[in-house]
């Protein structure tokens, strides 16, 4: 096991800059998730860590070893590919044994590790089969097994669940978490799925256009997004954004837009806020009718219900606020009628305010 330290990594493909100045830290035994929209450079970053691509600048260290220029086979990594990349001409057993045999691991040891991994992943009945004889979920487990038997220093995953159907994906997600708790291997996991990112990571790195936009423990990043991009990416349904004005009024700061007036917390505004155009961000899960808020309200949102999606335990009210679309989560019991007015409150700590032009949270302003 080892910690992973990445400093100032750069990567270009021809003229296209794919990664610029990326820093990543994963503690020994940590589980880091690189998350971001398709094409933001996640896979490229993972392949740099694996040594399948060469960095144009910066350094990659495992523990105190500088691996930046090492070939993949000298880095001591194991990787689960999005396509699983099982060797089609080998049985499951030989797929598992492949890397160990290449490293001249003694036969008895190989046998022991295969037994152990197949017990962990339930591969026993599959060992004599060929990859083409396996279902998608089984292939995925074999790919995991092939990584586990290696007992590598660093585990890399590139969207390992993206080829599974939704139900299986949720189950394997939990299995991966259990496996990590059991094995404790330093892991770097790439996904574009924010649910995977939130549930698996002890540290997430949100990538946008080849840069780390924000990193930290997932709940912290969720609670305090540093940019509008991060705010929009994490959470489902996505955060509501409203063009608004920040005003100073009777010694207090207020964010106003048609139908909206809320008072953000001091910590959301950063030092020396200035009045002017801002973007207000409110999560559907953070707003509620004032009597159900359970906290002191910090303002009012006047919404007009257009569509109600009732799911039983909760409902999503698709509304308009001013002229803008706005989604609110309501507890299962409340069923406002279509077209009715809905008054919503929000706690001050849940009010996010972003600069209109840069998209940065006010507390995260530059300069």
């Amino acid at each position, binding site marked *: 096991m080892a910690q992973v330290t990445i400093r100032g990594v750069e990567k270009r493909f021809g003229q296209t800059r794919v990664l610029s100045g990326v820093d990543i830290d994963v503690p020994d035994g940590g589980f880091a998730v690189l998350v971001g929209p398709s094409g933001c450079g996640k896979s490229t970053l993972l392949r740099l860590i694996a040594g399948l691509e060469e960095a144009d600048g910066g350094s990659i260290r495992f523990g105190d070893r500088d691996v930046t220029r090492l070939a993949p086979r000298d880095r001591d990594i194991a990787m689960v590919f999005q396509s699983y990349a099982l060797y089609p001409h080998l049985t499951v057993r030989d797929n598992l044994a492949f890397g160990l045999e290449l490293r001249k691991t003694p036969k008895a040891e190989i046998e022991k590790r295969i037994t152990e991994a197949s017990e962990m992943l339930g591969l026993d009945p599959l060992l004599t089969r060929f990859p083409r004889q396996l279902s998608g979920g089984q*292939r995925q487990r074999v790919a995991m097994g092939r990584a586990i038997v290696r007992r590598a220093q660093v585990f890399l995953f590139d969207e390992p669940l993206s080829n599974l159907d939704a139900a299986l994906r949720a189950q394997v997600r939990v299995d991966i978490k259990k496996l990590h708790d059991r094995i404790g291997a330093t892991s770097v996991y790439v996904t574009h799925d924010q649910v995977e990112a939130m549930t698996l990571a002890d540290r997430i790195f949100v990538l946008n256009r080849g840069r780390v936009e924000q990193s930290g423990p997932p709940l912290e990043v969720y609670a305090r997004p540093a940019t509008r991009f991060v705010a929009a990416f994490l959470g489902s349904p996505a955060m509501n954004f409203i063009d608004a004005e920040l005003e100073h009024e009777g010694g207090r700061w207020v964010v106003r837009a048609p139908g909206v007036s809320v008072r953000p917390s001091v910590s959301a505004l950063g030092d020396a806020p200035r009045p002017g155009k801002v973007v207000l961000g409110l999560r559907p899960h953070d707003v509620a009718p004032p009597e159900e808020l359970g906290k002191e309200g910090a303002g009012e949102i006047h919404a007009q219900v257009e569509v109600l999606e009732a799911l039983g335990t909760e409902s999503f009210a698709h509304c308009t606020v001013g002229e803008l679309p706005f989604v609110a989560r309501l507890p299962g019991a409340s069923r406002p009628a279509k077209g009715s007015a809905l008054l919503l409150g929000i706690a001050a700590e849940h009010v996010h305010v972003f600069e209109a032009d840069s998209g940065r949270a006010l507390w995260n302003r530059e300069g």
Partner: protein
Amino acid sequence: MNERRVGWVESALSHLAIVVGVAFSLYPVLWVVSTALSAGSAPERRVLPIPRSLTLDHVHHFLSGPHVVSQAVSSLVVSVATALVGIAIALPAAYALSRFTFVGKEAGVRLLLATQMFPMVASAVPLYIVLETLGLLDTRTGLVVCYATTSVPFAIFQLRGAFDTIPKDLEEAAMVDGATRFGAFVRVVLPAARPAIAVTGLFAFMSAYNEFILAATILGKEEALTLPVVLQRFVGEHDAAWGAFAAGSILVSLPVMLLFYVVQKNLVAGLTAGGVKG
């Protein structure tokens, strides 16, 4: 109701087309069989290829040639060597074309294509001179050199196509697992491409096994002749032993038919490549 009738008509028509096609391609073959088994040295002029009387004389005639065994061996050695050498040269070239980008790649591919446009005969004279200079005239090695080099372009195309269908992830997985790139090629890519390699080898084998003009030009020693040249001698200028020629043709075709039968499974898999996906 209507649909079913259309289906029936369609099926009948397509079967008719198949029957006509099969008859068309089998008719000459049946004549060869008939000629091989009929008495007399010239084919009879009749519509249906049914021999009047059966005889194995022509088979005996062909097999009693003084060097027939060493000539058969010669043919097999030359053809197998051609396939092996051709594949050995084409594999790394095809892999490089499939996986790497380098200066002159597309131009090189086009040049390879261009060489395919000339019939082998066109280069018979220059090849003769080259082999003479190298002292390889009248040797099977010389013939293999000619065959292998001419089989390489097609083999490269075929194998490059096969490699293109093998996901890059497989090699990368092998490299992460501890293999060098060459190790990944040998341990993962080659086995995954086995059907295509078998088919490509078969084509190279057949083109060498059936080739006549270069063989007749380059080889001289009676016992080293390849079978197409031997066959041709039966229908020489003076007397044409059509019966023995036909019997020999059938015997000569047997190894190829056998090979096709053996690689049949690979043939289908090789032509529908992509079945290699993990």
